[in-house]
């Protein structure tokens, strides 16, 4: 029963990721094609462009939300793949907790930097 809810969240996070990561991919990769439609994104990976986005709360919020969804989705997916080996209940618990711990660490690490950049921008 519990795994049913986890799997349902897998589908829901999938939809959110499709929207957020879709935006991210188009900005980062389709510059030539956006240019064709008259949208000008100059070198999204340049320091100036990156810092400009990092200073805007909307972008920081979008990226942190994307990070949360993606970490849940990818790590829950990985857990499902591992548990297909039908390990013992103890091993299953260990796998689950290692994955949760990893996810929390990755989330804290991945949130700290955008927040620090956001705060730094507001000071200067």
């Amino acid at each position, binding site marked *: 029963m519990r795994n049913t809810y986890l799997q349902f969240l897998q*589908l829901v996070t*999938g*939809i959110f*990721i*499709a929207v957020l*990561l*879709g935006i991210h*991919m188009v900005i980062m*990769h*389709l*510059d*030539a*094609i956006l240019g064709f439609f008259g949208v000008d994104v100059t070198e999204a*990976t*340049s*320091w100036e462009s*990156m810092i400009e986005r990092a200073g805007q709360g909307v972008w920081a919020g979008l990226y942190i939300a994307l990070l949360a969804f*993606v970490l849940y989705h*990818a790590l829950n*997916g*990985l857990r499902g*793949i591992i548990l*297909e*080996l*039908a390990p013992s209940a103890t091993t299953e618990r260990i796998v689950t907790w290692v994955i949760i711990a990893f996810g929390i660490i*990755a989330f804290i*690490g*991945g949130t*700290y*930097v955008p927040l*620090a*950049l956001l705060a730094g921008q507001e000071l200067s």
Partner: protein
Amino acid sequence: MKQIQPRQNYLGPGGWVWAGKYKLERYLYLLHRITGLGILLFLLIHLVMTTIFRIQGQDVWEATIALLHNPWFKIGEYLVAAAFVYHALNGLRLILQELGFAMGRPTPPIYPYKDSLRKKRPWTIALVAVIVILALVFFYDFIAGGW
């Protein structure tokens, strides 16, 4: 009646890739899994770059970006983009399918019958075509955007 023994049909890691007669959708699912794990690997590298390297300021950031312009990284980056297109669109198909949307009316299984997956197979093939086209669009952008 024969008792089913625990783990009687246990396949081990081999069950990850082969568990009987596979139809088209099952191969797509295998690819879904491979692309998912591939993007996860990329995500971990990407997180290191956007945290540990980015916080060190402009010089380190620009050196990292310059490193990523290496052709091998470019090829890897394109593979991630293509994997994303596949995983996203096939994932939306899986969501519809698993929640039972747009699967058509159930019909009684009287021979010869088509199961719901097979009824929807033309749409599945059309989706694969869309994925291929989008992957080519990304490919064009990778070439046109300059390496």
